[in-house]
């Protein structure tokens, strides 16, 4: 009997492969196995439910010395470093004690990012560009980190850290030129909107392939160490992209070679339509990845600009002291869709972003400045207007150089540039193709 069953379980040679017949599986009296596929706590039509989140009180988490053993930071991977409490007060050992002027600049930068996002989102809807990605609710993750880094440190961002450029004083017109792929676009219309690059501002070219920048940041940092430089690297990745092999290699290499790099995981809970559970977020925290690799790890309230600043500063000081990398989970929420091509009402409860228990980073910094007696609604409104005027002025300026053109004849760039920069020197086959394309366009014009 047994041998007959065994034979039946195996597909005949040359026959179709496939699962064995259930009834004949050996051990049929055991528990039937079932596959677990994670599901979020709410879908469209449900009320947003964040009741499972455990949120420690601001100021309650200890701050290890920057020279602490990596293992001493590991308890911090399972809690949240928070500085701003519900009343807008900065409390506890992580309070970076920033002066009011710095806080106001930080506030303005975050508001600028938000206004910029709003205008560019609208520009996409108006057909002025093909694509846009907002960072609504995540402004602190980039802006506050930029404040804690040195201007010469190299950032390896994802497409949702436009706040780094704004905080580093990059001209909004340049960003818009890129978004519009217009005549002023430094990247010559080659990159999808928001895939900025600027070496002088320490902003590495955004790939669009996810996670590839992570090991590159580690390599850049290793280069800095090889040369005895003092600059460090910082990288960002989304919760979803931590599933890529590049994440593993990056953290592994960073640990092995003690690379001076800050590895941020921006856990905004969503990877397009997949909640963080699909990337393993149900099993443990993303910060806890640090434990397995034996590097320092922190888990931070990403909607608390002071906590983001303090954690980044801690990790930067540690890296600069040859004490190696830190993995920081920035715990936040993607309030809007993934991009202009996405509609989150198709997969998650309506209004989830507004109910995020950790609040809004701009509102929280505003409340803090108010609590310090440095700010009020009137000034806030005035600043909002100022920011809006600046963004509109930049947009007007950028649009003078054109917006995305869909044409088969007229292009904002000199079309022959399409063949440049594939190699440092153009080989014969590209020269031939370039000539052919130019002839093609001339024929079309006739």
């Amino acid at each position, binding site marked *: 009997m047994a041998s007959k069953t065994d034979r039946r379980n195996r597909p005949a040679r040359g026959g179709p492969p496939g699962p064995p017949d259930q009834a004949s599986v050996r051990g049929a009296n055991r528990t039937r196995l079932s596959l677990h596929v994670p599901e979020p706590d709410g879908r469209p039509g449900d009320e947003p439910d964040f009741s499972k989140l455990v949120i420690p009180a601001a100021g309650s988490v200890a701050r290890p010395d920057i020279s602490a053993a990596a293992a001493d930071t590991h308890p911090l991977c399972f809690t949240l470093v928070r500085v701003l409490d519900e009343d807008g007060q900065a409390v506890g050992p992580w309070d970076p004690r920033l002066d009011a002027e710095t806080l106001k600049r930080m506030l303005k930068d975050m508001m600028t990012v938000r206004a910029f996002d709003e205008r560019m989102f609208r520009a996409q809807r108006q057909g002025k560009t093909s694509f846009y990605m907002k960072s609504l609710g995540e402004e602190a993750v980039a802006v506050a980190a930029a404040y804690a880094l040195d201007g010469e440190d190299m950032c390896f961002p994802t497409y949702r850290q436009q706040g780094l450029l704004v905080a580093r004083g990059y001209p909004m017109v340049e960003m818009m030129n890129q978004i519009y792929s217009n005549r002023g676009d430094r990247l010559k219309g080659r990159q999808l909107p928001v895939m900025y690059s600027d070496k002088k501002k320490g902003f590495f070219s955004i790939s669009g392939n996810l996670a590839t920048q992570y090991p590159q940041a580690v390599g850049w940092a290793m280069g800095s*160490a090889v040369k005895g430089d003092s600059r460090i690297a910082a990288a960002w990745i989304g919760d979803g992209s931590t599933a890529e092999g*590049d994440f593993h*290699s*990056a953290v592994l290499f960073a640990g*092995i070679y003690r690379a001076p790099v800050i590895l941020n995981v921006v856990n905004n809970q969503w990877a397009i339509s997949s909640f963080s559970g699909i990337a393993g977020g149900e099993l443990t925290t993303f910060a806890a990845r640090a434990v397995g690799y034996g590097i320092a790890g922190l888990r931070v309230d990403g909607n608390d600009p002071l906590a983001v600043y303090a954690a980044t500063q801690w990790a930067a000081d540690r890296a600069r002291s040859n004490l190696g990398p830190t993995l920081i989970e920035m715990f936040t929420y993607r309030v809007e869709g993934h991009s202009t091509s996405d509609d989150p009402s198709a997969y998650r409860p309506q209004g989830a972003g507004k109910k995020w228990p950790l609040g809004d980073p701009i509102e929280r910094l505003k409340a803090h400045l108010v609590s310090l007696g440095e700010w009020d609604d009137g000034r806030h409104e005035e600043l909002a207007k100022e920011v809006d005027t600046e963004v509109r002025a930049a947009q007007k300026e950028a649009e003078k150089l054109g917006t995305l053109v869909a044409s088969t004849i007229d292009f904002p760039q000199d079309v022959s540039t399409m063949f*440049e920069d*594939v190699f*440092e020197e153009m080989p*014969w086959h590209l020269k031939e193709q370039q000539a052919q394309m130019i002839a093609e366009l001339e024929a079309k014009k006739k």
Partner: protein
Amino acid sequence: MTVMNMIQAINSAHHVMMEADDNVVALGEDVGYFGGVFRATEGLQRKYGRSRVFDTPISEGGIMGVAIGMATYGLRPVAEIQFADYIYPGFDQIVSEAARIRYRTAGEWCVPLTIRSPYGGGIFGGQTHSQSPEALFAHIAGITTVIPSNPYDAKGLLISAIESNDPVVFFEPKRIYNGPFDGFFDRPVTPWAKHVASEVPDGHYTVPIGKAQVVREGEALTVVAYGTMVHVVLAAVEAAGIDAEVIDLRTIVPVDIETIEESVKKTGRCAIVHEATRTAGFGAELAALVQERCFYHLEAPVQRATGWDTPYPHSLEWAYFPGPIRLGTAFKKALED
């Protein structure tokens, strides 16, 4: 001048470049203390220190990602992938990143990275130590692919690769590391010492990327090859008594079309030889180029002699390898009226 085999020539190129430029670093699996499983990086760590020559974990994706990052910092990494068969975990970093960073940043960043990798079969390496994946890289815009066939070219081309400001995939035909294998596997190996190209200058010199070499002049047939197959072709044309012109491409992208075109227009016949699998192999590109440019000079269809479209079989290696018989058949067809 010193008589060198391929490994010694490659090692010498490392020494010359590491001595000349502090930004040159070498990394890879077993590359550091041990000096590489083929010993290509022997003595480098001792001389230039651990921070410039180091072992990496078994992580080709990591090696590529990190080396690209180092290159964007301003270093000139020479990254070894221990066998070309293991390059695939790093493929995304090569194709999507190294190849495109110059382009996508409009020249603001570049990736002066050399990816060295022993490749090809004939060593009883089975399917995982024998592959010739050059066509995969030839297909990628922004990647230069170099395959030397002798010690002199290996050193000169490797120095050119390291000095290049663009990523170069540098495949080393491991079957000819120790001698110019001629395709007759049952004969004893001839050491490099008996070959003129084993005379290698000790110092710095370059062999230009993108330039082929006519290694045998002839009137009856043009044979285009690279790597190990150059020697197999030379032995086969001698054995068959064919007055063939043999071109060693040395670089497959950018390919030296002028040399090929000139030769085929002269001979009117062309055979292409590579060890890699046949379908969509680099020979297909070469055949297309030859017919586009030399169609009215051709007296017969362009022929290909290649590996079969199967994985590289271990014990059947010499039935797989495009040896003298397969080459002879292709040459004969190319010479038909």
